[in-house]
C-alpha cells in the first residue's frame, strides 16, 4: 500500500486514509485566457512515466490538501510538501535530481 507522509500532522498516512486529487501545480486560467490555455488547464494532463507531482488530501486525518512527488514507474515517493506553493520546493527538487538526474516535468526541472 502506498504510504505518504502528511506534511501538516506528520503522520505516515496509508493510502486508505488519503484521497488522490490528480495533477499538482495546475496553472489556473481566467475568463480572459486564450482557448488554448483554457483547454490545457481544464483537460490536458501531465501523464509521465517517471517523476510526477500530485495533490493528495489527508482525508481521514487532518483533512488538509498537500503535494507529493512520486515516480509513476517505480512507485517510489521522493517527498511531500504543503500545498501553499505554486512550485515544488528546492529541497524536493534536489532529492529528485539525486535519484533521477536530468528529470523534467511540465515547466519544472
Amino acid at each position, binding site marked *: 500500500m*502506498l504510504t505518504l507522509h502528511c506534511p501538516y500532522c506528520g503522520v505516515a498516512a496509508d*493510502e486508505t486514509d488519503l*484521497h488522490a486529487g490528480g495533477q499538482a501545480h495546475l496553472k489556473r486560467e481566467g475568463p480572459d485566457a486564450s482557448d488554448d490555455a483554457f483547454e490545457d488547464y481544464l*483537460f490536458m*494532463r501531465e*501523464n509521465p*512515466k517517471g517523476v510526477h507531482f500530485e495533490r493528495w488530501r489527508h482525508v481521514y486525518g487532518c483533512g488538509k490538501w498537500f503535494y507529493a512527488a512520486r515516480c509513476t514507474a517505480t512507485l517510489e515517493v521522493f517527498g511531500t510538501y504543503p500545498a501553499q506553493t505554486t512550485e515544488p520546493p528546492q529541497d524536493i527538487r534536489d532529492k529528485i535530481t539525486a535519484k533521477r538526474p536530468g528529470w523534467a516535468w511540465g515547466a519544472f526541472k
Partner: protein
Amino acid sequence: MKPPAAGCRFHAGAYVVKCKERDADSILLALHRVQIGCERVTDQTGNRGPMKRYSAFAIAREALRQHTGWGRAWAARTPRRKYDVVIVGAGGHGLATAYYLGRNFGITNVAILEKGWLGGGNTGRNTTIIRSNYLQDPSAAIYEKSRSLYETMSQDLNYNVMFSPRGVIMLAQTQAEVRGYKRTAHANALQGVTTEWIGPDRVKELCPIMNIDGPRYPVLGGLYQARGGTARHDAVAWGYARACSDMGMDVIQQCEVTGVRQTGGKVVGVTTTKGDIDCDKLGLVVAGHSGVLAQMAGFRLPIESVALQALVSEPIKPCMDIVVMANTVHGYMSQSDKGEMVIGGGTDGYNNYTQRGSFHHIEETVRALVETFPMISRLKMLRQWGGIVDVTGDRSPILSKTPVDGVFVNCGWGTGGFKAIPGSGWAMAELMAKGQSPLTDEFSMFRFREGKFIDESVAAGVAH
C-alpha cells in the same frame, strides 16, 4: 526432421506468397511436408509461407501424423526500412486497425511494433466483458459495430476467439441506477441496440446464485443485454496477428518505439530499439502508454494512466452462465470456461505505470461481491494482476488525427476497450486510410476544447 531439400522454395528466405497462388501452394506445401518431414514453413527467420486454414479436417489430418504439420500462426519478422503505415502497439486495437487497413482498404505494407509480446498489455489482462449498452449515440454506434463484428469474428479470422454471447446484466442497486439504466434502455431502443430493463425476479432467474435481498444494496433490477458476453482475450490478439501476418504485414515483437521523427510538422518515421523505421502514416495505439508516445510526438493528451486489477478464483463447477456487473459497489463477475470466477473492480486513484495496483481495491471489490454472491465467500483466489488503463475525462475513447500530420491516435479506452476491439479497428483503419470516418468523427481529441464530451461516466460508473 531431415535437412531441407536444396533449392526448396518453401525454405528460400525471400519467398513471398502471392494470394492467387495460395491454394496451389498449400497442396505443394502438404506434399513438401510429407516428402521431407518438414515441421514448419514460416520459421523464425521470417520466411513467408501460406497460412493454413484451421478446420475440423485439419485437426483430423494432424491427429493422424502426430501434429507435426501445424505451421506457426504468425511469422517473426525483422523490420524493413520503410512501410506505408506503422502501428505502435500490438494489443487488440493496434492489430485490429492493421487488419482492417488490409482487409477493407488493401493497405498491407504495414508493420505493427510491440515493445513486449503480442497482447501482453491490457488486451491479455482484461476480464473480457463485451456489451454495447452505452448511453450516448456515438458510443452506441462504435460499440454496437464492435459487438456485431464479434459475432462472426471466429469465422472471419478462421480463429476460435470463443465469443460467448451469454448475456450481460448491469445491476441497479440504488434508485439513481434504476433511473439511469431505464434511461439507457430507452436510449438503446432508439439506437437500435437490443437491451431491456428487467426486474429483480428476472435477475434472480438469470443468475440464481445471486442474493437479491442484500442488506446494503438490494437488487432493484438491471439493464440486460442478451447478446453481450465474453470472448477469449488472447485469441483475439492472436487471431488478428495471424490474419495480419498472412496479408504480408510484419508483426514485430520486442521492438520498442523510442521516438517519433518528423520534418516540417509531418511524420517521417520512428526510432525503435531495432533501428529507425520510416513511414508515411503512424498510428499510436498503446493504451496506458499513450501519454508517453504523445510526448515523443510533441503533443499532450487529456489522459491519465492508472492501474486496474482483476483476479480469478480456483475453478469450480458451472454455477453462473451470465456476466454480472454491479457498478454501485464496483465489482463484476463471470465464470470462465475453465470454471474460474473472473472478478474485476475499480481503478486506483493515482497515476501509475507499474501494472500493479493497491491491495485494498481488491479487498473492496471482493467484499462487495460477497454480499451479492454469498457463495463465493469461501472460494480461494488463484491469481491477481493489474493493467495500466488510459482514462479520459469523459470516459470515452479518442480516435483522432493529431497536431502532427500523419500521426493518428487510438486510445482512451480505459477500463472498457476489449469489447471495442473490432469496431475500433474498423473505424481507425477508415480514419487512417481516408482521413475521415463516420464512426470516429465524434471521438476527436479536440472535442474537449469544444465542450463536445461523450459523457459515459455518469451512465456507466464502472465502464468495463
